[in-house]
């Protein structure tokens, strides 16, 4: 009995110790996460203060910053600040990054790592103002086996040489995924990508057309309605996207090409389109040529449920 008690005590202590270690690890993890976040926020504050100051930062201040923060935190802080500013202040960020060796750090890390880690460092690099030599440097990653590395290398090239953006986009070897297009739209808002959507919408390249549609729907410009009708009539991968882009700019859907496309859609897709059109605030009259009687009734009831005149007052 005594021996059993000793054994059970040891085993119990082992179990308790394991649970204690696990509990401790959870707490350590939380503490580390909080400490890192605090350090990052502190670094962002200091960088923002330097960038927003009346005078350009001196080298001694930048060197002090480098002493205080590791390159990983500093690169993230600088990219965070760079994301939220534009114009002449952006070159201050570039100056700090140049002096603190962030460009070299990111290039080195991209070279050392593989796959998504490499993509991460390239994504960080793309947030800074870049000269053309960086575009040439990342050209070797355009043949990487990972699609995200290829994409972020491509983004770095776009940032480094924005004049050739349209040519590069047209020559991109695959159709861009929605999140990648959103990344390009973000570059556009920063001024690193073309903003004139008309040549994009008229292009033969799928990627350019998709980007053009995203630009048009993002800015809600109704002048591109006829171009979107043309894309709807093309009957290819981009037609449905063009229909949704048309809906988001509240363009006219009473068009033959739109009608033909809607007729070819499956029942769930048509129902989804109904919900989207109702959400965008289309009237029953505007869509009556697109939908059958049951769908029109559904659309009407759905529209009434939004009660726009009351809710949006």
């Amino acid at each position, binding site marked *: 009995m005594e021996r059993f008690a000793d054994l059970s005590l040891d085993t119990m202590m082992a179990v*308790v110790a394991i649970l204690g270690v696990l509990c401790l690890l959870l707490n350590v993890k939380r503490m580390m996460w909080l400490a890192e976040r605090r350090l990052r926020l502190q670094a962002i504050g200091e960088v923002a203060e330097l960038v927003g100051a009346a005078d350009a930062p001196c080298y001694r201040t930048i060197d002090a910053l480098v002493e205080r923060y590791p390159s990983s935190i500093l690169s993230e802080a600088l990219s965070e600040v760079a994301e939220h500013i534009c114009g002449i202040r952006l070159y201050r960020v570039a100056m700090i990054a140049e002096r603190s060796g962030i460009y070299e750090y990111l290039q080195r890390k991209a070279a050392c790592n593989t796959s998504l880690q490499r993509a991460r460092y390239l994504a960080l690099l793309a947030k800074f103002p870049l000269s053309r030599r960086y575009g040439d440097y990342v050209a070797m990653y355009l043949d990487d086996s990972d699609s995200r590395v290829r994409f972020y290398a491509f983004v770095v090239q776009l940032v480094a040489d924005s004049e050739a953006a349209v040519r590069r986009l047209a020559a991109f070897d695959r159709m861009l995924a929605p999140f990648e297009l959103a990344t390009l739209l*973000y570059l556009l808002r920063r001024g690193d990508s073309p903003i004139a959507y008309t040549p994009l919408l008229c292009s033969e390249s799928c990627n350019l057309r998709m980007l053009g549609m995203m630009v048009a729907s993002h800015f809600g410009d109704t002048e591109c309605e006829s171009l979107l009708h043309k894309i709807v009539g093309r009957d290819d991968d981009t037609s449905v996207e063009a229909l949704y882009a048309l809906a988001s700019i509240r363009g006219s859907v009473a068009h033959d090409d739109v009608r033909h496309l809607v007729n070819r859609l499956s029942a769930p897709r048509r129902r989804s389109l109904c919900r989207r059109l109702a959400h965008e605030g289309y009237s029953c009259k505007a869509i009556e040529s697109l939908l059958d009687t049951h769908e029109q009734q559904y659309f009407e009831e759905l529209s009434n449920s939004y009660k726009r005149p009351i809710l949006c007052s």
Partner: protein
Amino acid sequence: MQLIALLLFIVALLLLVGALVSAWRRRDISADKLFDVEHTLLRNRVANIGVSMVLLAPRSIEAITNLLNTLYPATELVVTIDSHRQNALLRRLIERYAMIGVEHRHLIGCNSHVTGLYRSRRRAFRQLVVIETEEAEMSFEVAVAAATYDHILRVPRGAVLEEHAVGRMVAELGSAESIATTGVVSLTGATLQLMPRTGDNNIGIRYVVRPLAWYDTRPAYALFAAIGITLGTAALALLTKEPLASAAAMSLCGVLLCAMCVAARMLSQKSLLRTFSAVVENFYEDLLVYMKKISYLYLRKL
């Protein structure tokens, strides 16, 4: 000494398992870190991907407030309220968000179970939809019928979402054509899955390993309560040093561990192995980061 050796062996085993699991899920972890860089993008709409979050019979108004803080723009929150039991909550919701009753005839097939559909008059809460139902069993179907967007995120009661959690899922979903659904993993290994309204949900599921993206309070409380009780019992057994007390404490530990496993499994709806692997792999990742930081500080000191 034997005990220390056993402990060291177990810790080594944990590290080994962690290394293996971490290597296996390296891509997901890296994807998560990539989205960390792109967090500004997570606030922007990705193509036509919209998410309707469904919360069934919430206990408090704070759960709704938390979900309304989601930063991804194309989101909607559909809340169902049991008309028999949650009248007080409904009144508070109507008062707080200035909600008015609207028509609900479009809820085909579920209309008979719905007592009322409410939308907010305030522009800031346009994404909030409250449904008053009579039958709790049909709540999810009713909520899906009322949802606007094509992707449904069923949020369990008691879950607290990070503001970027939906954005991360959408980013993962919009990153490749082949992915049908995606989700985030919590600290306890439970998952929140973004489901398309139609189609096969079991094709191409990808999980973003994001331990703090969301957490469910119930398994965490169960875990910490069990650990606390176990430690307390063990301390008692050590102090008394009686064989009978030790045996009783040992049995109690066993029962508690079993209860904890069952609770974690039932509440998170995932196997214990998954929970364990999530905890271990997070630990392994952090250990690597910690070692890197120590080495950095050491080099800096030199």
